[in-house]
């Protein structure tokens, strides 16, 4: 069974980091929403950047995991 999970490590890392990035992006955007100063604008922009990076990371990580699972089941 353990053989079926070969190659899961990297996509799992990508998925885990994306989840953490998503949570941070929510926090950054919430702070930006509360305080509309120039500094908060930077925080909001960073939050939006993190948000899209995390979505991209999720898509890549989960697709990669699926491919690794299919490859593992054929091994």
């Amino acid at each position, binding site marked *: 069974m*353990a053989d079926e999970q070969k190659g899961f490590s990297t996509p*799992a890392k990508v998925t*885990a980091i994306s*989840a953490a990035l998503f*949570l*941070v992006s*929510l926090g950054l955007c*919430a702070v930006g*929403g*509360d305080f509309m100063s120039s500094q908060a604008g930077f925080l909001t922009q960073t939050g939006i950047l993190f948000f899209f990076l995390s979505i991209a990371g999720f898509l890549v990580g989960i697709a990669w995991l699926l491919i690794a699972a299919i490859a593992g089941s054929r091994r």
Partner: protein
Amino acid sequence: MFHPELHPVFETLAYVGGYSVYKFMRKRQGDALSDERRWLIIASTAVGALLGSRVLGLLEQVPGRGFHWQQIFVAGGKTIVGGLLGGWLAVEVVKWIVGIRSRTGDLFAVPLCVGIAIGRIGCFLAGLADDTYGKPTALPWGVDFGDGIPRHPTQLYEVVFLAVLAFLLWRWNSRPHKTGIVFRGFMAAYLGWRLVIDFLKPQPLVHGLNMIQWACVVGLAVIAAGELMPRKETKDG
């Protein structure tokens, strides 16, 4: 003194700090799981924590502000209790799918204490912008978060509680123990703590408890039921 923009900084430090302690503990005490399986567990924890934290964060706001679908897309609204329960549930589902039958959470107990404690410092420094402050108090250590009213610094109470809990769990984990019991001990202690400390927070109540406390009750009931039901332990690689 209070700067809401410090909250995401400490949140990031919490993830980094928690992960560093996990790496240290895994190297020190070893791991029955392979790297591949451990990373699957971590990824499922992270995704489950994200969903759980967001769902309970939104539910928490329902008694006070009602529910509107647009809130799903509004930033903020995350809870640690939702993250812990969501992460735990996701891990159990993924373990069932990939066929891991052993308990896997002991390595996470102390890192979670460290991560949550660091995050709580950010909650404290965020002041009134973060909904984690306590009710007004006349006690000498009451903190004015900016509205002129001394309040219980519930975030700092939690930091102290987590420091003590981390020390106890570290010692427990260093001694021979039944697999999984340290993580369940952490969950029971933290959910029990939140059930009690949230009475000091000015949150809207539903039948005497706030939504986070109701989630704690559910989590504690699941832990108690798990202790009463026998479980066949196996070794996974």
